[in-house]
């Protein structure tokens, strides 16, 4: 059931439309039942809708799960909405509270029984709820980490100092051998689903073409380094879901996400790759990150190539200074 999958990036829209469709379907069914004389009373309809949204949909449908505190907010907001709906007019409000009044008055055997049961069960339920919330609970503490901390002005890699404002990727070159971001941007993968290379027959687009040279050849060299070193965590599709991605915390960056390399300058990525987790400032949790300081494993050239591969493969452009 692929259509049931929540798709990364589309989740909020998906959620809202799913909920809207569910409510619509419910209203139509309820309306037709009403026409047939079997409609659900407002009281029960309100409770049903609230339970569906808060106890079922938000709790079980959304993944990764949303914390209880956030669900509590949604619960309150949707309760307010439902109250507005059931109290649209005096008559509707009367209709809504009739079942409650009936139980309070207890004129029939059934309501009498219900009243007695509720009088006993409610305090017991409250006791249980309060007891549970008083029990010490040991959820994982929330620690906020800065994913992209401010970079330093310069970084020294393999004995050479790089000024992040002025450094450039030496392999981002056009066929004439000049630094050319526009040229390389024209030959990254396409932006539609799958993000595939633009033309497998064109040696300017296909890094595996035997005639590939310049930029696209360096992309292949970068890719080779990526698949010998990086994919274990960052994944075969560069989406941060490698073999060991979830054994570690923080989890590896997802380069296909618009919030990572797509919004960074290439030199920032160079600094992050060269210095790794241990080179982060305190707000980036250098003690927890398993990202290697790649200067220990790769040459400067290899680092520049692998960065270029990452941009090529995800179809993003590095941000520029202007």
């Amino acid at each position, binding site marked *: 059931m692929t259509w049931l999958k929540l798709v990364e990036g589309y989740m909020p829209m998906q959620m809202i439309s799913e909920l809207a469709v569910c409510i619509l379907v419910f209203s139509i069914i309820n309306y037709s039942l009403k026409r047939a004389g079997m409609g659900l009373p407002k009281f029960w309809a309100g409770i049903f809708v609230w339970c569906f949204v808060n106890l079922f949909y938000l709790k079980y449908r959304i993944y990764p799960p949303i914390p209880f505190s956030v669900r509590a907010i949604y619960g309150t907001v949707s309760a307010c909405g439902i109250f507005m709906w059931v109290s649209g007019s005096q008559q509707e409000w009367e209709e809504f509270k009739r079942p409650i009044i009936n139980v*309070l008055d207890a004129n029939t055997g059934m309501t009498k029984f219900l009243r007695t049961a509720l009088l006993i069960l409610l305090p017991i339920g*409250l006791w249980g709820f309060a007891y549970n919330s008083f029990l010490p609970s040991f959820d994982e503490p929330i620690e906020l980490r800065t994913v992209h901390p401010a970079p330093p002005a310069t970084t020294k890699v393999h004995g050479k100092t790089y000024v992040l404002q002025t450094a450039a990727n030496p392999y981002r070159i056009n066929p004439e051998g000049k630094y050319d971001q526009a040229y390389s941007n024209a030959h990254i993968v396409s932006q539609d689903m799958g993000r595939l*290379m633009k033309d497998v027959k064109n040696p300017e687009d296909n890094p*595996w073409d035997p005639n590939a040279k310049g930029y696209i050849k360096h992309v292949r060299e970068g890719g*080779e380094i990526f698949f010998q070193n990086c994919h274990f*965590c960052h994944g075969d599709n560069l989406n941060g879901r490698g073999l060991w991605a979830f054994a570690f915390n923080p989890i590896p960056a997802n380069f296909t996400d618009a919030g990572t390399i797509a919004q960074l300058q290439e030199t920032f990525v160079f600094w992050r790759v060269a210095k790794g987790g*241990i080179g982060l400032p305190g707000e980036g949790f250098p003690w927890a990150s398993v990202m290697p*300081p790649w200067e*220990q494993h790769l040459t400067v050239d290899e680092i520049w190539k692998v960065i270029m591969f990452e941009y090529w493969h995800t179809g993003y452009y590095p941000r520029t200074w202007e």
Partner: protein
Amino acid sequence: MYGNQSYTGHFEKRIVMNESTTPTKYGGGGLGAWLLSFSLLMGGLSFTTTSHAEMAEGFAEGSRPSPPSAEQVEAGKRVYFTKCVWCHGVNGAGDGPGADRLWPRPRNFNAGTFKIRHTASGELPLIDVDLFQTVTHGLPGSAMPSWEGILTEDQRRDVLAFVTTELVKDRSWQDTEFEEFHVLQLETIQPVPPTAESVKRGSELVKEMKCIECHGLEGRGDGNAFNLKDDWGFSIQPADWHKCWNFRGSRQDAYNVKNIFRTFSTGVSGTPMPSFADNTTVEDRWHIANYVNHLCERDKDVDIAGGNVTDEIAAALVAAKPRAIDPLTDKPKVDFVIPSKFVEGELPADEHDERWNLVDRRIVAMGGQITHKPRNFVTRIDDVWIQSLYNETHISFMFRWDDRTKSVQKDSVDWEPYEVNLGDYGIEEQAPGGSLFADDPEHPESIAAKQTAYQVFNDGLAFQFPIKWQELPAPRKPRYFWGDEGFPVDIAKWTADGELKAYQGEGWDVDFEDRDDFTEQLKVVKAEWANGRWTVIITRPLKGDYEEDAYIELGKYIPINFFVWDGHNGDVGRKMAVSAFYYLVLEPPIEKETYIYPTLAAIGLVLVEGWILTRRANRRKGKV
């Protein structure tokens, strides 16, 4: 006798093929070699010619896929050279640049040998079903990811069109002379319900069928684990039945028994795992599948007594509930808080103590140490189960993890136990290779050769706490990798030679310092390797010296992380598997307030109820 029919059939077919088409270097020979060893193992194999005309139970004639269009192949080529080529290589020989640091290696498509199939043993897989599902769901336990959500359905079919026509070179789906399709009718075969009787029968059958010779008495893949080779000569390990989420054919649905039934019925081509369709009835196959499925780790850790499953054990296996699987990882959900519960009196002396049931066991996911040299690209231990209990003075940890081999170092080594940087002693990481060794599993530099020819070191386990964690401003911790300067860690390291020592770590590249006085207070209560699993119980005092040893307090989040070494994987020094930071929490006994406040609230509610009823009654009286 023992899977003879399908195997002889397949064998002969392959010989014919090797004459008529270009054979791969290892394709036919490897299969023959293993067949030979298989026959020796089983005490003689009669080479009778039997065709698939006598179809095994549960199979039906399948249809031949129609050849893909040229456009589809061309479109698939674009997918292949963007996504797949990096591991599977330009010619699909499983020799891409990434291949040499992977184990299991990427598939070599050339011979048309595919592991996970619905088709009978030796036959090509169904493209639309088997290969499509492999691309869609990936192969867990290997580096092959799920491509669903990345490639569209059409793109996945296109790439299969390219692979099956251009890269499978020795066989063809269109070859009407040699290729037949007998398909396991998995959707229509009635499953046998997983009752205790069925599970027990399955446990008997795995012994009768000799499954346990490779998979081990308790199914942890520890039988004969180091002598198995695949068709290409690369070393391969039997599946660990206790980790169904790592079954290659689990299709992102770990506890689904049908996947096991399928693998058992059709075998795993290219590996020593045969098809059992010809000599096992459908019913018996279900019993085995049910048993294997129920061995997979669940909420309760059921002791299966070396595979001698009694009615009682079978009932306990059936009663245990599957663990929650995280859809992000397709592995059991990880909880980063490890609870420890209070017990009166002495801490447990072994794993059978009833009091372990008081506390949840937690899974700790492990990944290779790939931060500093020598990096570890292949880990054979991907998780450790942990439980903890404490009393007034001590805390006890029970670690249990699956390890196919008990590794105890025999030869003396040149380095001291506290040394961490072993680069000078030839402990190196796997070279990138870039397909250099793809054709030669025997090449001493290939990862496959090293998988069988490592010097054996000690299995081991270590965990570290920050020293004086109370003074660290949250969330600051010492570095996960043996602390850092100014932020030392308290390390307890156990090795399979029986040693448990306390060290202080001050950095990944700094040798450990001995903490002799604390070593004396650490105790290995039990350390036993049995049937592919280590059980190590360690106790330590809650409080040592505040300046040197982690001071464990109640109700606090104490950072802890773990390291494991598999001696047969060449793990030693910094080459091992590591975990992320977890938190150890000693849950304090329940306080009085926990009872008082809820009672007050309940009494308050009773009063409110009384007030509402009285008011309502008064109002009605007034109205009437």
